[in-house]
């Protein structure tokens, strides 16, 4: 067994400004040139990143109390409904909620980005009034500075692999994967490939509950496994899954986020979503970890799924590598089909570099996971059924 490093050793180097940090793209060449062993000795941290649309995104906000106070049960932020089922002045606003007045042109994602940009947001709230919270209505304006707390909490981000999308029907489809042109007119795909966080730590050795991350320009943490965490999927010899598998629930400080790393997304005919910028550092604990981060797009595969089949379980037309997808076209049944990404590679790179800078400057240290994710977790579907008979 060659070199091993601990979190403490790596963090000590970071604080002294001596840590060697590279991105998950840069590391590929270094390993090719120097070999795994030498690279493991020299490199301490590899930064990964992604910037793609993630619908399961939202923010917890606390407005503070008015005088007299109100127990808000119906809440509108710039006419977008936020959840009114928490304590008096707490709410959660989801990215995909649409404006009551503007529809899909403006949604929760826009409210969150307006707050991050420092803009004023209109708050309207209603209540039936109680003895302790007599007020029945408020209409006022908030900013991120007027809020007590504001943090993003995203139940599912950073998918470990995602299926590419195609349409075999004779009419165009408008989906969250963009417009899929009829008769296999195009293939759209997500993930930042070799730079994607969970591709670089496929068995979740260093990404777990408590991992310290970059979230939209601010610091954040992995809060839990993401929803629909499906680690039991089929994997290759490197442990990399062929289909959507692990996911992350992320939390981060909205007040310090930067507009350039988060953006509303409106998909034609589908609705509102949100581009979320995530950066995750991976400590090179040993040679196995170095091997994991040195994967290249040619080693990463995903299924091409037919979105024209109106079932949850859509058929695959075959596997394709991220290198092929990135090239701009793929061959399918002897026909060349144009491919286009949805995840921004340019932004993903910017994030990986920004996180690298933070660590090089000593302003960001690593946190060892305080709980690891399950390796064999699978999904259940939603059964549509009658109530159990004997339950009276």
């Amino acid at each position, binding site marked *: 067994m060659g070199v091993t490093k601990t979190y403490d050793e790596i963090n000590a180097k970071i604080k002294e400004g001596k840590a060697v940090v590279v991105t998950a793209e840069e590391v590929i060449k270094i390993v090719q040139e120097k070999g795994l062993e030498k690279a493991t000795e020299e490199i301490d941290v590899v930064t990964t990143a992604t910037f793609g649309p993630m619908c399961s995104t939202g923010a917890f906000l606390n407005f503070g109390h008015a005088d007299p106070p109100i127990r808000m049960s119906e809440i509108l932020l710039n006419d977008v409904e936020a959840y009114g089922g928490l304590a008096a002045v707490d709410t959660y606003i989801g990215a995909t909620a649409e404006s009551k007045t503007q529809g899909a042109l403006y949604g929760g994602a826009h409210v969150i980005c307006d707050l991050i940009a420092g803009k004023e947001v209109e708050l309207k709230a209603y209540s039936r009034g109680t003895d302790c919270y007599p007020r029945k209505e408020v209409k006022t304006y908030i900013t991120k500075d007027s809020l007590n707390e504001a943090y993003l909490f995203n139940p599912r981000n950073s998918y470990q692999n995602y299926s590419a999308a195609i349409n075999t029907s004779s009419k165009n489809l408008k989906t969250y994967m963009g417009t899929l042109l009829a008769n296999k007119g195009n293939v759209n795909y997500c993930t930042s490939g070799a730079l994607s966080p969970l591709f670089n730590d496929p068995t979740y050795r260093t990404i777990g509950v408590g991992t310290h991350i970059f979230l939209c320009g601010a610091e954040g943490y992995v809060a839990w496994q993401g929803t629909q965490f499906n680690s039991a999927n089929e994997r290759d010899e490197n442990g990399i899954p062929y289909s959507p598998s692990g996911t992350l629930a992320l939390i981060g400080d909205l007040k310090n986020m930067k507009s350039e790393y988060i953006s509303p997304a*409106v998909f034609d005919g589908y609705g509102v979503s949100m581009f979320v910028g995530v950066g995750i550092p991976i400590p090179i604990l040993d040679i196995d970890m170095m091997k994991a981060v040195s994967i290249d797009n040619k080693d990463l595969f995903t299924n091409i799924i037919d979105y024209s089949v109106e079932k949850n379980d859509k058929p695959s037309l075959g596997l394709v590598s991220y290198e092929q997808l990135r090239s*701009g076209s793929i061959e399918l049944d002897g026909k060349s089909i144009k491919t286009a*990404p949805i995840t*921004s590679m340019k*932004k993903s*790179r910017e994030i990986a570099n920004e996180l690298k800078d933070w660590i090089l400057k000593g302003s960001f240290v690593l946190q060892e996971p305080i709980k690891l994710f399950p390796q064999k977790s699978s999904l259940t579907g939603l059964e549509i059924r009658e109530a159990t008979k004997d339950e009276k």
Partner: protein
Amino acid sequence: MKNKILLTFPGDVTNTPIAYDLVKKYDLRINILRASINYNMKGSLLMDVEGTPENMENAIKYLQDEGINADFIHPIIKIDHDTCVDCGLCTSVCVSGALILSPDDFALEFLQDKCVGCNLCINVCPTKSISI
């Protein structure tokens, strides 16, 4: 649907009440941007036309049957680079290859000469960064 149409017509049809016909027969809203008549009595007319795509097609046919050269001027799209996140999704519907991601840094590039003005990219862009 809104489009710019450029008409050029020979002297002998300069008197046809085109604008009237476009409004009455094809239910188009028109806004004349430029009109000129030269010394040969040959004229040209540039206008914004708004209406259903079908009516517009038919109106163009009608004008051509009247002996007028009529064609759409394809408005050139604009990209707001402040809001564009370089995701690349617009390239998926751009069959002419006018929108591409640079192979080096994956930044969105717009090759204006290749744009055919189909405008498909406008609605596809999730950050609404493309406009005419």
